[in-house]
């Protein structure tokens, strides 16, 4: 099995062994390609699984920085250039896009498209377009105390947008990332992990990771967990033969 080079960063190991193309081939419908309600594509002819993961969160929380780090650090898995579709200064106006190939899982190539949305409130319609067909979400929250309310508003916005696409924030594969942990060292007031858990994850109860995207800390773990949940969810959707 091809996987991430570093031992811990294997998004398709362990629990995800159930993804078997052979089993899928035995599935009662034999389509050359089957797309789910989500964006994911299972192309049996080419033996490929393609899914979409969106980095969501308030403006300036570090979504683009996450992708930049992934682009830089996981060169082997990144299958194309990172594209930032127009920015104003260093703010994303449309989206960032990064294609990845995770290698083969029992003969099936897993491809992932990573997107970021523009965080600023006024780009609501763009966020909706980018979010459409999402298979997994990384919600990047800003650890700065001053951004507490923005985090909550953005999470609510995500919930609302998912609802509009007929899905629930409680059902979509979701991982929280508490970014900018390093800013406490610079003397800026940050929230404790416990506080962020209480305020953002009390009801969701999804995996969460402290991170410093600028330094690359926690970026891989966040992505790994999101991919694991996403692939597991896709397996459930297809009622994959066990």
């Amino acid at each position: 099995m091809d996987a991430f080079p570093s031992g811990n960063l294997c998004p398709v190991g362990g629990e995800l062994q159930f993804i078997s193309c052979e089993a899928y081939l035995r599935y009662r419908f034999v389509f050359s390609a089957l797309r789910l309600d989500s964006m994911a594509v299972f192309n049996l002819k080419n033996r490929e699984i393609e899914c979409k993961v969106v980095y969501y969160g308030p403006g300036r929380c570090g979504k683009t920085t996450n992708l930049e780090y992934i682009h830089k650090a996981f060169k082997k898995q990144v299958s194309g250039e990172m594209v930032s579709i127009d920015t104003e200064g260093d703010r994303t106006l449309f989206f960032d896009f990064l294609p990845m190939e995770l290698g083969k899982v029992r003969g099936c190539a897993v491809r992932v498209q990573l997107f970021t949305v523009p965080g600023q409130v006024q780009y609501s319609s763009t966020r909706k377009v980018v979010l459409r067909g999402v298979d997994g979400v990384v919600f990047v929250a800003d650890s700065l105390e001053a951004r507490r309310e923005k985090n909550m508003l953005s999470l609510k916005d995500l919930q609302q947008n998912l609802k509009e696409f007929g899905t629930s924030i409680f059902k979509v594969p979701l991982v929280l990332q508490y970014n900018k942990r390093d800013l406490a060292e610079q003397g800026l007031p940050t929230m404790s992990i416990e506080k962020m858990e209480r305020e953002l994850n009390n009801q969701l109860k999804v995996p969460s990771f402290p991170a410093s995207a600028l330094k690359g800390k926690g970026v891989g773990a966040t992505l790994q967990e999101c991919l694991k949940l996403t692939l597991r969810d896709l397996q459930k959707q297809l009622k994959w033969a066990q």
Partner: protein
Amino acid sequence: MDTKKQIQALFKEAELYRSHGLFVEAKAKYDNVAKLIQKNDRIANKQSLLDAISKKIGAVENEIKKFDKPPATPKMSTKAQDLVKNLFSFSEDKDEDAALLEGAMALAKFGQFERALIEFNELIKKDSLRVSAAKNIIRCHIALSSSDEAITKYRKWLSGDSFSSGQLEEIRIFFQDILDRKGIDKKLPAVTQPKDARKEEAREEDFLDISSIAITLGDESKKGALIELDVNFQRGNTISLIISRDDKDLIENLKVGFRLNNIQFFSPIAVFNGSGIVSEKAPIELGPKKGDYRVDIEIQNT
């Protein structure tokens, strides 16, 4: 903490927020700094400090204004537009026409109206996309503040023979609604009955009024569940159904061109079997049914 240290701490915080692009937060801290300086008469160079802080506040205010008023949608490069078109064509492996439409619509949603118009003007040549493409052409022109251009287009369609009178009427209602909502005081010319309208009307009378239908999806040998659907509108041998956005499987299955070999038609005076073909599928974009889908089925054999 003494005032001097408090000012220094707040100032450092403000500078850090500013360096992270958090201008609102930076401004709040600079304001606090200014207030503290103002209150303290023991600061020797008080006025020069206040001037310096004031300059900083002005600079962050400018930044805030810049981001509060989003710039006019920038034009993407052709390469970026191509990427948008491809990335947001969700149906590319299921329904080529639908994918083309989605790609063009994505360009419009990202504000790339001129490129979207080029795409829609190609799509209008396709039977299955003609009406949707026409509506989107109108939308793009309106977004580009060129309602006159849209009206010229509509008139061209009206005088041509690409659209049926039913389709033209649908486009007229759609377009007039936009003009009215935008407060543009223009009345679109009504659709004139075609020369063979009487013949068409006579043909229409040949069809019974259908109130509902029952269909089976999937491999009929598998005896899929019977789905009953109300008919919302009927024109001749074409019936329109409104399908809730929640019925994703159904919407997914009823692709344009999809043949339904076994349809039960219910009319007030008879029940009969027949077949039909999905002639159009489009999301409803206005009104209480927004988000649901209109699916037209052309009855073929009864």
